[in-house]
């Protein structure tokens, strides 16, 4: 039996993701019997300390991080296909900052920092911001650089709203609210995992349905129209779904940067294609955040570092490398 390249790339990435998740649930500051950790991580009671340490602390956190990485990567894959540019991602386009600004606004208005209560706000913020970016960046079709630079501008507007709200909210809420500027997987519970899993279950099938049509669209608008794809509608649908996924991700962990940029690029490079490869991208995103979260948790243990620091440390140099290498700027 021969497997297609995307399939075996996906399988290898899945093995890496699984290894990272296993390491994250079994390794930690408290040494536990390996078998107890594994059983607790899948919800089997062991009547040992692992029930709490793994079952309530490590596992929900790791699973949330992994699923959020998958959401972000899916969002990035969709947006990069629509913009036909490897730089398009919800964080560069300002969608993530829009979600964070809306979440912090909700903290300011309702005085709660429970990320479950803030989820609707974050999703609304992401969708509104993406509508704004499309409004500014779209005139007679999409021009990638215009979309991206307009997105950076709108992202700055959203970030400045967040900054203002952070000076206006009560002092006791500040440390929690400040995490919305960087992204954190600290203290996630099973509710987060449930929402993340629901988000994946709701968005991935639609994304897969869109992916087939986006592949056609990548061959050119005229050809796609001839094959029965409506380019404008399809692009708007893909942007909306990408923004929704990024908003859901931001609602669960705050804005974890660069995953949406890097994961699809890793997937495309491994599959050796220029076009959208949704499944490998999603799995690459999961592997990336699972690993980054393990590092964030353990590298300076017992002090925890926000996961967004690690993804930025990987992603920003990659973006610089991409800029250094790219040709054809004067468009």
């Amino acid at each position, binding site marked *: 039996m021969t497997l297609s390249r995307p399939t075996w790339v996906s399988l290898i990435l899945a093995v890496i993701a699984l290894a990272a998740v296993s390491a994250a649930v079994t390794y930690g500051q408290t040494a536990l019997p390996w078998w107890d950790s594994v059983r607790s991580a899948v919800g089997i009671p062991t009547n040992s300390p692992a029930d709490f340490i793994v079952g309530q602390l490590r596992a929900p956190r790791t699973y949330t991080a992994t699923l959020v990485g998958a959401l972000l990567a899916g969002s990035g894959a969709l947006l990069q296909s629509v913009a036909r540019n490897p730089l398009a991602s919800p964080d560069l386009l300002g969608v993530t900052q829009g979600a964070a600004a809306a979440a912090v606004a909700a903290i300011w208005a309702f005085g709660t920092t429970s990320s479950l209560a803030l989820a609707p706000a974050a999703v609304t913020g992401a969708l509104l911001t993406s509508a704004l970016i499309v409004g500014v960046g779209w005139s007679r079709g999409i021009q990638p650089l215009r979309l991206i630079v307009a997105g950076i501008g709108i992202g700055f507007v959203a970030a*400045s709203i967040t900054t203002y709200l952070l000076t206006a909210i009560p002092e006791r809420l500040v440390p929690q609210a400040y995490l919305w500027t960087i992204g954190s997987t600290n203290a996630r519970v099973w509710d987060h995992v449930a929402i993340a899993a629901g988000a994946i279950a709701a968005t991935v099938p639609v994304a897969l349905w869109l992916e087939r049509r986006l592949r056609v669209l990548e061959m050119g608008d005229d050809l796609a129209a001839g094959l029965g794809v409506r380019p404008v509608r399809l692009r708007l649908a893909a942007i909306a779904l990408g923004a929704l996924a990024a908003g859901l991700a931001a609602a669960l962990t705050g804005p974890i940067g660069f995953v949406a940029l890097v994961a699809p690029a890793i997937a495309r490079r491994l599959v050796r294609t220029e076009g959208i490869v949704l499944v490998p991208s999603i799995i690459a995103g999961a592997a990336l955040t699972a690993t980054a979260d393990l590092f964030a948790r353990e590298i300076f243990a017992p002090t925890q570092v926000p996961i967004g620091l690690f993804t930025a440390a990987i992603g*920003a140099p990659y973006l610089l490398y991409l800029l250094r290498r790219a040709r054809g700027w004067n468009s």
Partner: protein
Amino acid sequence: MHRLTLAALAAVALALIAIAASLAVGAQDIPVRDVWEAFFAYDASNPSHQIVRELRVDRTVIGIAAGAALAVAGALTQSLTRNPLADPGLLGLNAGAALAIVLGTVVGGVASLAPQIVLAFVGAAAAGLVAYGVGATGAGAAAPARLVLAGAAVTALLTAVTAAIVVAQPFALNQLRFWLAGSLTGRTGIPVGPLAVSVAIAIALGLLAVRPLSAIALGDHAAAALGTRAGLTRVHVLATVIVLAGLATALAGPIAFVGLAVPHLVRALVGPRIGWLLVLSIPLGAAVVLLGDVAGRIVARPGEISVGVTTALFGGILLAVLARRMWTVTP
């Protein structure tokens, strides 16, 4: 009257109005007449006079110095890179200076201002050189989007590190969150006078680059033919920009977009004359920051919105509009 003289007079008049507003408007409005008397007929028992002399003068001087510094730095950067989207804030200089100061304060325990300013220079220089090196050299050096994206990458990384540090230090967070928002009142007890004089000296050094920059505007070959030493000019201008951005950040925190917006305003008045561009950036930069600060005092009365927030609001929108104008789709 000559058009350029008229423009200069208008800019200076606007700056004077902004200064008067900055002295008079606030949580406690003070009639302009009382402001006048506070300087020329000081009555120590009059609380209005005390407010003007003890609070608002420092604040206004900081606004003038930071605004002029940022605007001139922006004009210099745009002229040197021949990139209308260049801005010290967008390039990550302010974020670099902010991170260096946060690192020094939180990790190194640096409390006094002089070493903090040195740190600000180091941080601004490191961030600026990375963004400039990636975004404005080599093939495609003049592509506007590339420099913006390189700056966005550097800014994202530096902001993530800054956020990670301050989140881990709740006490420092409460002290720094106002300054990190970009504020003319975030720091108390700093020697405003010497800092303002330093800004003036740095601006004067920047003005010495008018002639070589005008030659560079004609292109590298023409500049060489005119006897301009491009390498020397680059070092001179970049060093001046770093000093100006570092001083502005030390005074008022990271304020973005003044350096982007003001040169565009000035060019609308005087056209592509670099000498006039730099000179008129001084009063208009001061006016924009002061008016942004005054607007922040009026809108959120009796509280305040930091000037960094108001400028980013307008500047982000400006960037989006510029992006829309620069990349038009050719059908």
